[in-house]
């Protein structure tokens, strides 16, 4: 077996991977290689043609392809090798990456391996939606790829299940391209996407949003003919007698994203059941020393700007790791307390500043976020509102921390 060595091997050439590669170079790490399964870098942004990207990172509103191109151009200017059409098959615990491409297999070992593969969409099967299995049912991202990249229109009469951002953005896209979007149905009593997308993607086009509703049956043998919609109670159980049939030829699912870290399944990498991404410490280092993760493969973000920023923070830590051969140990656990869905990082040193990321588990108004250690308040932040759709990030200063004792993050 022909084993190649590099200082840093980055899996995935989307907004996280490219941002990390560029930052590593800026930090003096010369030998960086990016592995990308598509024919070009840029990741999922290539199909996200709507605008609104880059407000935080660049201070202007860009479309997805434009945002990606800034990183692609910079990586090119720096001469960072990006191996396209290269699909990683597996990651082993010794940081060896096996990848496949038309030129053959490659076995590449990195002193550091950066996982930046993004996420995938939750499917109908994962939700176990009853009914038949005709053509015309797609996740929002697949419909987006067909419409925006492959020039294929997926249907005429559309129902959207789930109020995730991509679903709402597709509601607008489908409408602009001549389809009739009959409604968006959300099982939760609150929307799962951002408020501004409800406004500009649904309200602008008079597309109704039905909260506390879900699809309870799917009809049609060959092509989708309709769905049954039911109202649900507070435990998300359909309420008998509320069934309503909605005729449609297309059902778009926008029911959640899941970190796509599958290639690491055989490596023993520890995964957090809450985020479904890796456990990481404040350096974005996973349970395998020298393997790092950031972006949507770690936890699903709502804004690409924060994906890039997180990947840059990862690159700072990875550069230090490569320079010193190790990073400070992180023995302190960070736990999700009341009203917190998940929290990152799951481990910290207690000796350095770090960025805390979290999502609340239900919508709250005038909420107080508290970080406690050994019963003592480390940080308190009053929030006008806190929505599960919006990731919260705040920086925690080392001077407020003890060097022993776990942290608990809660919102009330």
């Amino acid at each position, binding site marked *: 077996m022909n084993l190649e060595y590099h200082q840093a091997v980055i899996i995935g050439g989307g907004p996280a991977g490219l941002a990390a590669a560029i930052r590593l170079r800026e930090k003096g790490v010369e030998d960086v290689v990016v592995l990308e399964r598509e024919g070009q870098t840029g990741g999922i942004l290539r199909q996200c043609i709507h605008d609104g990207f880059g407000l935080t990172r660049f201070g202007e509103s860009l479309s997805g392809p434009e945002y990606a191109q800034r990183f692609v151009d910079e990586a090119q200017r720096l001469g960072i090798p990006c191996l396209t059409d290269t*699909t990683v098959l597996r990651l082993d615990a010794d940081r060896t990456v096996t990848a496949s491409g038309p030129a053959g297999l490659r076995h590449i070992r990195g002193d550091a391996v950066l996982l930046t593969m993004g996420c995938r969409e939750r499917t109908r099967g994962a939700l176990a939606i009853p009914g038949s299995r005709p*053509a015309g049912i797609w996740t929002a991202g*697949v419909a987006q790829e067909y419409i925006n990249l492959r020039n294929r*229109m*997926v249907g005429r009469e559309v129902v959207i299940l789930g109020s995730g951002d991509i679903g709402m953005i597709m509601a607008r896209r489908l409408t602009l391209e001549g389809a009739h979007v009959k409604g968006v149905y959300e099982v939760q009593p609150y929307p799962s996407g951002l408020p501004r997308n409800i406004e500009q993607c649904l309200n602008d086009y008079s597309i109704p949003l039905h909260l506390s509703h879900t699809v309870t049956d799917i009809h049609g043998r060959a*092509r989708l003919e309709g769905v049954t919609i039911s109202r649900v109670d507070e435990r998300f159980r359909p309420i008998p007698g509320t069934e309503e049939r909605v005729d449609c030829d297309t059902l778009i699912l926008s029911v959640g994203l899941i970190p796509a870290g*599958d290639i690491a*399944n055989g490596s023993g990498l520890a995964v957090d059941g809450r985020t479904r991404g890796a456990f990481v410490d404040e350096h974005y280092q996973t349970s395998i020393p020298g393997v790092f993760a950031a972006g949507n493969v770690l936890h699903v973000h709502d804004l690409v700007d924060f994906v890039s920023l997180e990947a840059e923070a990862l690159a700072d830590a990875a550069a230090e790791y490569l320079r010193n051969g190790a990073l400070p140990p992180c023995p302190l656990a960070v736990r999700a307390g009341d009203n917190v869905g998940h929290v990152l990082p799951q481990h910290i040193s207690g000796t350095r500043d770090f960025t805390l990321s979290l999502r609340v588990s239900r919508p709250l108004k005038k909420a107080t976020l508290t970080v406690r250690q050994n019963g003592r308040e480390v940080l308190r932040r009053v929030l006008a509102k806190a929505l599960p759709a919006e990731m919260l990030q705040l920086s925690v200063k080392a001077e407020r921390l003890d060097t022993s004792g776990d942290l608990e993050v809660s919102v009330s």
Partner: protein
Amino acid sequence: MQQSYDVVVIGGGVVGSAIARELSRWRLRIAVLEKESDVCTQTSGRNTGMLHAGFLYKTGSLKAICAVEGNQEFDAVAQELDVPFKRTGKLIVGFTDEHRQRLEHFMARGEANGVKGLELIDRKRMDELEPSAGGNFAMWCPASGILDPFAYTIALAENAVRNGVEYFLNCAFLGEERQPDGTHLLRTEKGDFRTRWVVNSAGLHSAEVSARLGIPGYVIKPVKGEYFVLDKLAGQFARIPVYPAPNPDNTFDTHATPTVDGNVLIGPDSQLARDDQDYESTQAAMDGLIESGSRMFQHMEKSYFIRNFAGIRPKRVDPATGTVQDFVLETRDEAPGVVNLVGIESPGLTSALPLARRAVALIRAKEELVPNPGFDPRRKGIRRFIDMSDGEREAAIAANPDYGEIFCRCEQVTKAEILQAIHNPLGVHTVNGVKVRTRATMGRCQGGYCETRITEALQQELGLDCRDIELGPAGSWMFTGSVKGGGEA
């Protein structure tokens, strides 16, 4: 259009395809009429994929004889036809004294049927074999195995085609007219077929086809069963199929079965089907499977759910009593030139070739057949990248760079495999046709990554308009046309 054949087989499921393949050993002009867009879209493809041992069925019945025969020969069959198969054995588990009595009964019956290696084992031995299994004791049946029912049906059909059989897809049988010379004129969706022999292997429709061919009176009860498909991550906990003790009426409740590819199937339940296309999943059945499946498999967790499906077993019942009857395989004097198979349900997958040989024997009892000198019993399937060692992968990519291009990331299916599937010998041109031949779209992302690539490849390779691409059955269109620049339907 009218075409003349020696034998026309109605129904291209596993039994019809096995019969076509066995007939192709002889110099005959053979056609198979399949009403669906592919073989194995109905009962043959919608089941547990179990190679049964034969302990369940009444001694001396066709079900028992064919299951035992089919089970014992399957290592050789799998090799000859290149079908994924594992002789895993099976645990039939019990919790109560009543269960123990039933297991003892079936052990005695199995031994009488010729099933080898049956033994009753305790929990300690179960833990050695399969710690994830529920139950306090079990019957261990080492002869049982698992196979890919799609691959097996396709292999039989492709081998039949290789040996001269013609398949007609989307070609439903509509009716028969007996000609003055004794031959049959078969009316179909694709014109008329004239033939000397007709074989009824119409599965769910076998009673109806039997009546049309002059043998009325059979009653088929369509019994539906739903399943969950679990992620391969759950597969690490399921090496051996685990079944509950059979019910007093010789049926099994929900079981947990590993697939040859490493997934786990939880199911089936048992309910009366509404009609022959009642493949819908229902909330009530899903809830039931979650509950009963958890008793058989300790890792029945929601995060492992990737897909649901349903199948329908065509059970032949006594019209008076409603009790389930044996397979029918017959010729009748009042319907000359008809080989009639009715009520082929489980263990039909295991019994397909034994039934097929017996069907051919019924024809040979009436006329002398001449061997087909070109007959080749072997067939090679599409070589799967995921099953190759790294060294084999290197060689495969060097010979064909398309083997390096991953189309389906979950199941690691390459472009080379997709292209071979698109150009399959049966001429199936659907997304599901590619799916069942390669496993693309069967993984945890359910086509989220590869479906766009597959439809693009279908369009390019076959020169299709995107409006003509279908998911599976006739009419399952996927696209209304281009988004921009014309081509709108």
